[in-house]
């Protein structure tokens, strides 16, 4: 699955993105726009992680608009934490409130996870996807496995 780091702002930018991607980058902080296996995760006021999108048409659409599209597919690996204890395990690793009322399905957050950082995307009540920098993935995987045992 392609990962693109998408940067930009302003109405021209949003319009171009929407035209090229078929979805508009969410402007509400920490929200995810997703459809058909593609997603746009809000990472900052002018920054998104585009998942499952092609870079070339996007770059083309954004030509002449202050923006950046960088392929970061290899930058992160994903870990899935799911099941009845998903909230509990994440609560050992991160300081966020993982209660579904505070962290609804379809939202994401960047935060510290154990002693590294990552993006957490709530896919359903009991399922979270974590995107972590590739070099940290073995560490985080082992940490979460250990946390799940106690």
């Amino acid at each position, binding site marked *: 699955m392609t990962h693109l780091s998408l940067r930009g702002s302003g109405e021209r930018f949003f319009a171009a993105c929407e035209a090229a991607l078929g979805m508009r980058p969410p402007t509400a902080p920490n929200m995810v726009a997703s459809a058909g296996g593609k997603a746009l995760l809000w990472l900052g006021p002018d920054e998104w992680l585009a998942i499952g999108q092609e870079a070339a048409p996007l770059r083309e659409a954004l030509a002449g608009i202050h923006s950046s599209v960088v392929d970061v597919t290899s*930058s992160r690996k994903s870990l899935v934490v799911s099941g009845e204890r998903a909230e509990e395990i994440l609560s050992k690793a991160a300081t966020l*409130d993982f209660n579904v009322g505070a962290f609804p399905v379809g939202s994401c957050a960047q935060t510290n996870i154990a002693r590294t950082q990552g993006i957490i995307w709530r896919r359903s009540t009991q399922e979270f996807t974590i995107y972590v920098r590739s070099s940290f993935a*073995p560490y985080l995987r*082992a*940490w979460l496995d250990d*946390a799940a045992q106690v």
Partner: protein
Amino acid sequence: MTAFRLAEGGRIDRARPLEFSFDGRKFQGFQGDTLASALLANDVFLVGRSFKYHRPRGVMSAGIEETNALVAVGEGGRLDTNSRATMVELYGGLVARSLNRWPSLGLDLGAINGWFSPLLVAGFYYKTFMWPRRLWQSLYEPLIRRVAGIGEAPAQPDPDRYDKMHRHCDVLVVGGGRAGRAAASEAAAAGKRVVLCDEGDPGAIAKVEVLARTTVFGYYDDNFLCAVESDARRQKRLWHFRAKEVVLATGAHERPLVFGGNDKPGVMLAGAVETYLRRYAVAPGKRAVVFTNNDSGHERARAFRELGIDVAAVIDSREGTVITRTLGGKRVTGVEVGGSRIACDLVAMAGGFSPVVHLYSQAQGKLRWDEKKLCFVPDGCRQAVRVVGRANGEFPEYRIAPLWEVEEDKAFVDFGSDVVARDVHLAAREGFSSVEHFKRYTTTGMAADQGKTSNINALAILAGATGRNIAETGTTTFRAPYAPVSYGVLAGRDLGDFLEPIRVTPMHDWHAAHGAAFENVGQWKRPWYYGRDMHDAVQAEARSVRKSLGVLDASTLGKIDIQGRDAARFLDRIYAGTFSTLAIGRARYGLMCREDGMVFDDGVTARLGENHFHMTTTTGGAARVLDWLEEYLQTEWPELEVYCTSVTEQWATVAVAGPRAGELMKELGFQTELPFMAFKEATIAGIGARVFRISFTGELSYEINVPGDQGLALWKAVMIAGEKHGITPYGTETMHLLRAEKGFIIVGQETDGTVTPYDLGLDWAVAKSKDFIGRRSLTRPDTRREDRKQLVGLLPADPREVLPEGAQITEVDVALPRGHGSKPVPMVGHVTSSYLSPNLGRSFALALVRSGRSRRGAELFVPLQGRAAKVRVVEPVFIK
């Protein structure tokens, strides 16, 4: 049933007897007992020895405030020392030992200190042990240390692992007594998320998450609280709470009374006696005397009688009578009241109540002295906190009159620190009248209970001794933790390999399988050298790169994608050099300085397009540099249209270097004649790549960047294609050696935060006609000095001599002095890098030397053990 166990009642399970041992003797208790209640039930009253005088001590309380009955529980790596017997849940097979006694609890030679007690007053050690000076450290201090301390630390590592949790809630209730449960239920009924913590087990409450055996010990800013959860055998989990509102229902602690011999086994807090009777069905005596200064003592006496303890007398100070002292040795046998004696085996002290305001005070809540209730009560806090019940001073009908002290010998104020009332008076006399001074001078409040039983009595006595009232005298600050927390719980699972994340590159497994020794570079594991012996490996690796072909995993280098209309302008401000003039497809080396002009990172940046750059940074600097760029973009130059994206992990980097590198590249499918410091996108071994002809080593060298997922495939392809060239993988040590041969600096090795680009002789990398971060600092008087430390090369007179890195350099031929007492020898610099070069056939070094550049050809010395190594200053380039 034992002599002191009641036939019925209590919350113990008589159907579940539990065997345990104390000091090697076997006993029986029941499920639901604490170690303290089980010991009392077995007529064990002498439980410990006091800190200083080694006086016999027994169980005084039934809770966390216990400061006498400290024992060791468990064995080996699971030894819990200094455990409060009142807080240790009994379990089958529990092994406990008494502490601070030798040879035995009954016969403790340390008790000899009691005979010297007239000498061992508060602060005695400040006044003596000064002569002769050498005896302090050889004799007096070791003696003091041996006598002090309580239990032994475990001798083995702890086999247990610990857990941590974060929990957000609307309302956090601390304390599961009546007030706390009511507050929790009410909040839950209003639809709030409620968590209630209690030291014990308050039972279930509808719609409330109840955490039993969970002690909240810290209350920090913005309603952040920490608690420790235990099971019967250990503290096991640290909780972090962030609560919208906190309700403190922490109750009150009963105060002891201060009179002669109030510390003997059998002298207890009245409330504790009732707890033992009601909750544990243990009568900690047959015949009691109650000593009180308030109404509660009388109620206690009624309860004792009801539950089967004979009460010989209630001594109420409000009626003009007091206990002056207790009788007995290792167990109380009676009391003296006025001139007469009353026989008893239990003295119950009812000295009034102090609300448990510790957490409230930690939360920066203010306290007010209530002259009627004789206690500190909550009086306003910035944080969202409510205090309910007895913690708020809401006692039932309660009249009390001050009795802070019965003037007598051995009238203990702080049991844990062995502070007597006379120590308080001495401190006041010697001018330690500030509460904090007094506390430090006498050590009051510094023992296991952290003043829970002593602070108010001590404060009141101090107030009396200094002619002030208690409100004027003040109180000491309450600090976390409310109850002691084990180090293991605080560390949690972040130990061993989890202490810091281990970062690995996509090629890591290959390196490990091929005998790489790894170096910790920040969090990264980088191949250091390949093979068993570092010296041999490095010599072979270095020779191979210069003679034929070597390959390095350079994936850890920081990489940042920079694009936007103002990207070139931005880089001109960030780097000391100019990047706006860089042609597309070309790369340039750059230095970054801090505003103080000192070098903080370096790397090569290539221009991919008019408005598009690929920056590289040092491995350790990757995150720091990206933060730096963002900081300046967002806060100083928001008008610049530039976006920076970390691509460190997007690209795996394989650097091939050596005379055969060109041939190898051709064989890998790269046909372009790429000039030095140029860049090209290409397909290498079937993988889309960015190829840079740049060099860490000064050899013909290509850096092939491919997406991280393809890193291992590329590495393997390079190894196969390179086989006929004798390709040799090399590690960081060889890379450093090769760089040093060429005089290339390593940030953090040749620099230490005090080195400018000019000091490094890198004037060519500094633009003269534009501003950049740090430029202005380079023209300050000190940075302009001619005699700054400058980078030079050193050639040892003995070509086999490898100078120690870090070694200092002098102008005179001296061995490294002993140190203390030797005459200072001026130093002119130090060795930053030093190697034995197989390519030079000799040793060499880089160094920072004062006025180094003007010393070319001069001789200097590197003082070593027993001799100095002679070195010649040369240009810092050894292989042109």
